[in-house]
């Protein structure tokens, strides 16, 4: 199974590279587009989350090592230390996801308050948000 995947990876290396980076960067651009263009505050926050998701995918993609297995010394893989993917980006992305979640939670609570105040979640109808 692992061997098969390895062969496929070598054979279609360029396509897979484009696919991984393209998906991640594409997601980031979609998120940025939503942040810049959308009028609804909730959609802006969704955009921010998509932007984050793209970046997290990049982390995971970068951490992959050709032919590597998961960085866990599970039974049968006790000596596979040199054949594992990079564990550091995986640990970092965990932190990044949690931080992204915290920011989203605070953003949503701010939106609830803005909505109560202005009875709208449209950015162009909330005066002091225009700049």
């Amino acid at each position: 199974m692992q061997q098969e995947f390895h062969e496929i990876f070598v054979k279609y290396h360029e396509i897979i590279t484009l696919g991984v980076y393209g998906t991640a960067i594409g997601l980031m651009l979609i998120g940025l587009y939503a942040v810049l263009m959308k009028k609804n505050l909730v959609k802006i926050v969704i955009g921010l989350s998509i932007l984050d998701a793209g970046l997290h995918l990049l982390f995971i993609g970068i951490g992959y090592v050709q032919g590597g297995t998961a960085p866990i010394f599970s039974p049968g893989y006790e000596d596979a230390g040199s054949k594992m993917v990079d564990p550091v980006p995986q640990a970092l992305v965990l932190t990044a996801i949690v931080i992204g979640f915290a920011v989203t939670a605070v953003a949503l609570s701010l939106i609830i308050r803005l909505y109560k105040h202005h009875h709208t979640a449209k950015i162009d109808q909330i005066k002091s948000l225009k700049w």
Partner: protein
Amino acid sequence: MVITPIHYIVVPLLAAFAIPLLVKIHKELPRIIPGLVMFYNIIISIVLMQQVNEFGYVSEVIAGWKAPWGINLIITPFSGFLVSLISFMGFVIWLYQYRFKRVIDVGELKSYGILQMMMITGAIGIIITGDIFNMFVFLEIVAITAISLTSFYRHRDGAEAGFKYLLIGGFSSTLILLAILLLYTQVGTLNMAEISEKIHLVPQGMKATILVLFIVGFGIEAEMFPLNGWAPDAYSQAPGPTSAAFAGIVVKAGVYGLIRIIFTLFDIEGAFDFLIIGGLVTMIIAEFSALKQTNLKRMLAYSSIGQMGLVLIAFGIGTKTAVFAALFLMFNHAVIKSLLFMTGSILMYNSKDKTISTLNGMGKKLPFISLLFSLGAFAIVGLPPFSGFWSKLYILTAAAGEEMILLIGAILAVSIVEIVYYFRVVSKMYFAEETEHITIFKPSVNAKIAMGILGAVILIIGLYPDLITGYLHNAADMILDKASYIDFVLNSNAPVQ
């Protein structure tokens, strides 16, 4: 137990996690505990600064893993100076906000105490950590608390200001994370000393990309133009003590991040010119914006941005005198601008519609506060007997040393603008006819003591600048000395006990 740098982080954390339980015992505890923590921070600073004087640095590793592999905390003269400054300011701000009138409900008090304390802890964390990703985590702690505190008051437009800050902050954290990812792929480490050691292996183009991402990301916290859209709103909507903390603490941490990255991590010469230009634009635009503000806190916020521009210029000149001057200015800015925000928010409570024009006759009604505000105003524009004078003088000397005539002209011109808008306020307070009756909100004794301390510091440092210049010279040496930073972190892993 021996005092080590980790105490800066662990003690506030213990307090923060315990406050929700302790509030059940007595409802005054969330007010008192942050004060104790801040006081303990000062003790840590004193002990550690003595060690720094003796050994040159204090270093500690987390979980026993040596520096390039585990996370290390390092206090050099530079970071030690900033951390001590932040500890001192944190305590003074706590003293000022203790018995803060506006916060009455226990639930609000609990959140406020935790958030304010953790904002200061986050700023300290940014400064003492030796790991780039750890710095990012602390930066996010500061961002989350700052956003929550900005929108603390429900009757103001705090939520808008907070949301603005959140969008810009979210964007900045994405950029920093991207930069960290790229850097990691290039050098395979996250330790700043090891990055600095290996940075010459990175291709030029990639290096420039990473540096730009970092500068934009940290420039947002350091209020660099055009990334400072959040600052005036956040400063003016946040509670008074929080505005003081933004000026005295948060911005310092942002500048530290920027400086650490440009001076230690990278070896690109062009970054210094970038700092000068960025700082210059920031300063000029901010000071002219300050001129046309009608809200006192917004005016102070723009002035704060302008001052940070001046700090960036001084760092950008990059000579020893200039770096020393920049550090001196950071110290002055922290003390003076915090004093201005403290007195300014009390003046604002007493004005009718929070504009400068309603300050008429304040000099008679609140003589002590007005006097301190004027003191701060004179000090920040750089009048001779006060501490602000020295920092400006040193910056001009440094610029003259590099024969940057245009820069000197710009700084002097901007100083005149500063004088105009600060003196407008001061003259209104003392010389304008009192037009309307205003309700008087008397500040409590502890707030007066806090402001008095800051006023005294401004006077004493103004008269005897030698009291801190020795430390600052050490710190300036340390910033420019990349090799010994790397040596401290990587080659001497035994924690100095």
